[in-house]
């Protein structure tokens, strides 16, 4: 379970402090697909980056499976991160490495004893994961030879290399077309179901949230304005921003 307790993040800027996250508390259960929805600039990416501490909260705490990880540094921090997979909107595959070397990459860091193994073990696990994402035959290709959807599948395989218990998805399908988005989301849902990986998914798209999320939180201007089961939030929206998002989706005017 991931607990975010009273997380705030303030960025100092030339024109004064900017509060990106303002006292956010959320808890994400093990094994669920949790969606964080909101317009760009709402603070979704900053929030999800607090989970693996790519972003240090200014105040508040991050507790994972009962352990406060907020202050971790060095070796312990790297070990924590190797247990949390992450995929990105801009995919970020290493262009100078083959597909299989991209997938192997996290294991070669030896950030934790889990999933490291010998070169041969790494290669066989990487091939297995490429099979899971349906790209076994592309092992020796290079990223620029693949389509956007295929590249994101490789990134998913890479994120799974160290057998993480959590997968963070930062607008992972936003750069993909609709059909590809659907198939990548199906893959994420299958990973959640079959491997039991907890998924935290950020999106501005209600279509994406509807397709895979069990529970969602809606963010606006650094605040979580409402949260609950997908059904509840979408059927009985209370916050104006949720109503507005749903209104845009259905094309109906929202009072």
């Amino acid at each position, binding site marked *: 379970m991931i607990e975010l307790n009273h997380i705030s993040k303030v960025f100092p800027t030339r024109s004064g402090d900017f509060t990106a996250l303002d006292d956010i508390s959320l808890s994400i259960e093990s094994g669920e697909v949790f969606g964080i929805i909101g317009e760009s600039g709402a603070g979704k990416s900053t929030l999800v980056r607090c989970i*693996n501490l*790519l972003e240090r909260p200014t105040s508040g705490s991050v507790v994972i499976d009962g352990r406060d990880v907020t202050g971790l540094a060095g070796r312990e*921090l*790297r*070990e*924590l*991160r*190797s247990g*949390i997979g*992450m995929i*990105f909107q*801009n*995919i*970020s595959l*290493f*262009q*100078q*490495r*083959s597909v299989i070397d991209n997938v192997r*990459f*996290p294991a*070669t*860091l030896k*950030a*934790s004893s889990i999933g490291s193994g010998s070169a041969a073990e790494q290669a066989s696990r990487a091939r297995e994961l490429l099979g899971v994402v349906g790209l076994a035959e592309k092992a020796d290709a*290079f990223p*620029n*030879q693949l389509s956007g959807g295929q590249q994101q599948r490789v990134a998913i395989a890479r994120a799974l290399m*160290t057998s993480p218990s959590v997968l*963070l998805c930062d607008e992972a399908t936003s750069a993909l077309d609709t059909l590809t988005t659907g198939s990548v989301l199906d893959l994420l849902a299958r990973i959640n179901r079959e491997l039991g990986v907890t998924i935290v998914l950020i999106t501005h798209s209600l279509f994406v949230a509807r397709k895979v999320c069990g529970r969602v939180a809606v963010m606006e201007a650094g605040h979580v304005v409402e949260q609950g089961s997908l059904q509840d939030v979408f059927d009985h929206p209370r916050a104006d921003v949720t109503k507005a998002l749903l209104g845009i989706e259905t094309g109906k005017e929202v009072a």
Partner: protein
Amino acid sequence: MEWASAFFDKYGLLLAQGSLDTLVMVLASTLGAYLIGVPLGVLLTVLAPDGLKPNRAASAVLGWVINMARSIPFIILLVFLIPATRALVGTSLGVQGAIVPLVVSAAPFVARMVEQSLAEVDGGLVEAAQSMGASTGQIVTKVYLREGLPSLLRGLPITVITLLGYSAMAGTVGAGGLGDIAIRYGYQRYQNDVMVATIVILVAMVQLVQSAGNLLVRKLDRRMHA
């Protein structure tokens, strides 16, 4: 033809020795410049305000030292460094004596080029590696240097060719090599044929270096295999 064969009989050995000296000077100083310049370029990148280990003071001092070294014209650096060169390699003359000032002048140049190449590496890749638990050292070697390799290699012929030019200047203060020959025979004895020969050799060297560099990039940049 008779003229050519007479010319080669007379100057062939001299030009061959000069070419060899120039090559040794340029290759040795390129190696030295990269041994110093690459770590400096990495430091510039890592210590920068948006780098992995931002350090305003260290990065400002380093930048200032590099700019200082780069702002001294080579011909002046050459003379200025004579005592240091003597202390380091025992002589300020010949090929050996030229390598010290060549390295000192090229290392900061290489550092800036390396910084430039590493800046081209997508920040998303650095963040991705961080999210996997990579250490700063791993990010430098496995992400910056690896992903920046094609760009780094494109800088290599630029450095070699710059050093080729500088090595000719070093010739004026007794370093030997083609520059020395061009000055002694072409300038001081009005033997234009010898000077033209050195120019032809230098032009050929530059072309060769650039072509070899391009070939290397084509072979090693995996993005071009599509």
